[in-house]
Every structure is written in structure tokens, then in C-alpha cells.
């Protein structure tokens, strides 16, 4: 499928960039990956995303789209094969609600737990556990392999980082929340998600992620300003 005029600005370990990689690969769309150095951002990135100056940015026919959830919607509306969102408004609203929940509650709590110590870290950990309990309830209630049903969809793609990146947030951040006994449905979802060929073939190596998170920890909270 045509992609000569399709560029993805991102980095090889950015969890937000991978959402876009997965969606494009699922739909078999060819694109050019442009690796950004977030400590030395390219003029193209600064021009394409002047508001946030962050990755990922998708540039289609010269027109830039920023913010991973917005980009996912755009991809689904532009290339109609292998849809990632349902056509039913109620199901779409459900996916969008939970996507926002993961990006706000779960992600923000993860940042706290990773960068802070002592009581502040404990509060972050508690918030993650709370968020995880909600997600557990949702996936258990679905009685299907994925949030999207029999196949992965929008919400699986958004939650996906927790299946692969989160273990390093815990390891390097020095805390533990994920527990296959406490969250068995989520654990099953994780295993099933990582077996999906498009996902399995498109994950950053463990050592790479470990190294990157160690770098973030050294930088402190400033690191989060440097990347989406």
C-alpha cells in the first residue's frame, strides 16, 4: 500500500511511536521511519509539531499529524482495511474513554512511581494498582482475547506499552505492581498481545529499553519533558 509520501518521526524506544508503527504494520502500509534525536530535534520535527515538539509525528503528503491517539484515528480513517476502531459509536466511545484513562491515570501514576521515592513513590504505586484493577475488570468482563474482541484494536494498541515497556519502569524505578495472580485476566491479555505477529516482530529489545530507562532515571523528571 502506497507510502512513498508517508513519514513517521519517532524514536526506536518511544512507546507512543510504537503505537503508530503497530497500526501502520497491521494495515500493511509502507512508510519511512525517521529516527529523531530528542536532545537535538530536527527542523522537520520542530516545524511539524510546533505546539509540543514531540514524537510521534506522522507526515502524510507533507501534512503533519501529532498526538498518538489523533494519529491512530487518522490512520484508521484513511486506510480502511483491518480497522482498529469499531463503526459502532458506543464501542468507539468506550475505546476512546479507556485510551484516555490509560494515558492519563496509568501513565501519570507510572511517571510518579518511577521518578519519585518514599511516600510519593508509594502514592504513585497505589494509583497504578488502582488503575490496573480497573483494566483487569474491563478485560475480564469482555471474555475475549483482546479489548478489541477476537483481534487487537485501538485500545489494545494504546494499552500495549504496559505489556512490554512497563516491566522496565518497575525494574529501573524500583517497585513492583504487576502480579499475574492479582491481575490474571490482564496477564492473559499481555501474553496474547505479545504473540500477535505484528506486535512480536515490532518491539524494542529488552536491553535497549533497560538502558533507556536507566538514562531517564539519571536525568530525573526533566527526561519526561524531552519525550512524549
Amino acid at each position: 500500500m502506497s507510502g512513498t509520501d508517508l513519514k513517521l518521526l519517532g524514536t526506536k524506544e518511544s512507546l507512543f511511536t510504537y503505537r503508530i508503527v503497530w497500526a501502520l504494520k497491521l494495515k500493511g502500509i509502507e512508510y519511512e521511519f525517521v529516527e529523531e534525536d530528542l536532545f537535538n530535534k530536527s527542523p522537520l520535527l520542530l516545524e511539524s509539531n510546533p505546539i509540543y515538539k514531540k514524537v510521534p509525528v506522522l507526515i502524510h503528503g507533507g501534512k503533519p499529524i501529532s498526538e498518538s491517539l489523533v494519529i491512530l484515528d487518522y490512520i484508521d480513517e484513511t486506510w480502511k482495511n483491518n480497522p482498529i476502531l469499531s463503526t459502532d459509536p458506543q464501542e468507539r466511545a468506550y475505546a476512546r474513554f479507556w485510551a484516555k484513562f490509560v494515558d492519563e491515570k496509568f501513565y501519570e501514576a507510572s511517571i510518579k512511581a518511577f521518578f519519585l521515592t518514599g511516600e510519593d513513590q508509594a502514592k504513585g504505586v497505589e494509583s497504578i494498582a488502582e488503575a490496573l484493577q480497573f483494566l483487569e475488570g474491563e478485560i475480564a468482563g469482555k471474555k475475549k482475547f483482546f479489548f478489541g474482541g477476537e483481534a487487537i484494536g485501538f485500545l489494545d494498541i494504546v494499552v500495549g506499552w504496559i505489556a512490554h515497556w512497563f516491566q522496565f519502569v518497575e525494574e529501573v524505578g524500583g517497585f513492583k505492581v504487576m502480579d499475574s495472580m492479582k491481575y490474571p485476566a490482564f496477564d492473559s491479555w499481555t501474553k496474547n498481545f505479545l504473540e500477535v505477529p505484528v506486535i512480536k516482530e515490532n518491539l524494542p529489545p529488552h536491553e535497549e529499553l533497560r538502558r533507556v530507562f536507566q538514562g531517564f532515571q539519571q536525568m530525573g523528571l526533566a527526561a519526561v519533558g524531552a519525550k512524549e
Partner: protein
Amino acid sequence: MSKEEVVLLDFWVSPFCNRAKIALAEKGVAHEDREEDLFGGKSELLLKSNPIYQKVPVLLHNGKPVCESTNIVSYIDETWPSPALLPPCPYGRASARFWADFIDKKVFDAGSKIWKSKGEEVEVAKRDFIEILKQLEGALGEKDYFGGDSFGFVDIIAVPLTSWFHACEKFGGFEFEDHCPKFSAWMKRCMERESVSKILPDPEKVYEFVIMLRKMRGIE
């Protein structure tokens, strides 16, 4: 013809609830607004329909809840497609969603910082707020509305927040029209629409509400 039941769990001064009400009005969808008593005690229905956040607005369509105001406006647009709030082409829609998300992330919090702060912090909050409105002016450009010639999605996301601006101005000691004339002109244009002028609360009443909120927080 099946009867549709549309209920909005509401709070009169909430700009987030007003987004949903304006969208429903633009679509001509008959519905019931149920005012929640957010300070006295939230209803069982609210707590059951939005267990995660326990906040308004919640749209109940034939009993099924939709939460989060921008999500609700998208749902309304998709369920009752005419007149369309989003442009037809994917790029225009992406642009609209981007700016709706920007407004969600930035505007209300920045405005609230002005009336929540004291002393020097107020000046900083004011500067940040004006900068955000200037960025929105950039998005508006020379267009009548964010979407172009017609009132649409981003306008609905943005305009209810403006009923809180008078309170920001009073506590910040400024008039945003002096700094952001284009934004001010856009606001006045939106207020000419019946759906907007009938639904948005009187800014003086919002100002009184903010005074009460400040007292509750012990800011004086």
C-alpha cells in the same frame, strides 16, 4: 419509530456539561437534563454510570453511559450525523481532534490557575493563559470558526470555557480582548448562535460561583 431516551447528568456551571448540551442542541436531539448536586451528594445514577471519575457530564443514551465531555461530543456527532460537526476529510478531522485535545489539556487549568493563585503567581498564570489563547488564535487564523465557515467540533469544545473567562479577568486584572482580539471576535460570533447563548450561563453568575469556590478553598 422507537423512542430514544437521552439523559444528560448535568451541572449548570460546568463548561464540560455545556459542551454536551450545545452539541445536542445543534443536532436537535430532544433530551432530559438532570442537575446533579455536586456539593450535596452525587446521585446513585452518576456514581454507577461513571465509577472511574464520578464526574459530570455523563450522557445516558437508552440507559448506556458515555463519559468524558469531548468523548460525548464525538459520540453525539457519530450517533446523530446531521449536521456534521467534524469536516469530512481525515486531515481536517485530525486537525480538529488535535485542537480539541489541546484545549482539553490546557485552557481550563490555565484559566483556573489565575483565580486559584495569590500574589506574583497570578501574573505568571495570566501570562501562561494569554499565551495559550494566542496559540488558539494561530489555529483560528482568518477563519470565522475553527473548522472554517461553519460552527463545529472545536468551537463546541472551546466556547463553554469562555463563560469562565470573565472570572479570570476579574481576578487577573486584565481583559483578554486586549491581548487576543481575534479570539474575542470568535467568541462573540459563537454567542450569536442560539444554541450557545441559551445554554451558556451568565458570566456574572459564574464569577459568583468562583468566589464561592475560592472561599471553600480558603483563598482570599
